[in-house]
């Protein structure tokens, strides 16, 4: 079922650091944002200043996730 999937995105320097822009995982083994990171990066250490979002809102690493969610990881923002 495609809606059981959790989509994971990496942006900017973090995408280059982890070597991928997009990943997927399933709800059954991924309950929080940090678990999604560990799953998608094969337990790489997360850079200290990493920002996290679920469904395009900022969250903390312990934030719960569910099927259909989009989880994103990125470095501090530098627009403007």
């Amino acid at each position: 079922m495609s809606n059981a999937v959790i989509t994971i995105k990496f942006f900017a320097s973090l995408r280059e650091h982890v070597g991928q822009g997009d990943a997927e995982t399933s709800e059954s083994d991924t309950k929080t944002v940090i678990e999604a990171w560990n799953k998608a990066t094969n337990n790489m250490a997360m850079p200290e200043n990493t920002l996290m979002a679920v469904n395009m809102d900022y969250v903390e690493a312990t934030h719960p996730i569910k099927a259909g969610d989009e989880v994103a990881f990125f470095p501090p923002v530098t627009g403007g």
Partner: protein
Amino acid sequence: MLIEIKDAPFEPYQRLLEYQAAADFSGKYGATAVFVGSMREFNQGDDVTVMTLEHYPGMTEKYLQKISQEAADKWDILDSLIVHRVGEMLPNDPIVLVAVWSAHRAEAFDASRYLMEELKSRAPFWKKESLKEDTRWVEKNT
């Protein structure tokens, strides 16, 4: 209240005039505060030839809308406009336009400052600089 992401060069003053001409606050505003941010040809002591701006499609727009609504809730303003570039740009190219219209100057000044500061700290954009022989991500906003 409008936000725009542009993937090609734009002329901020022309966009400002177009927006103002079509707006519904004609006759009501006594103040317009405008901020334009442009690309420098130097950063941290190095020459920068090209800058590439990346964003998170969807979340960037969501946060620009969110901060625009916050400004409208905090101050008595008539309207606001944010235009932001993404993609490759060259020195002198405009990066961002923020404009706020209000009846009196204090609200326009304060709300435009708020929009710029919140944009820089919360909107997901990232700058990558091309130097003469290297590229690097900008790590923190000044």
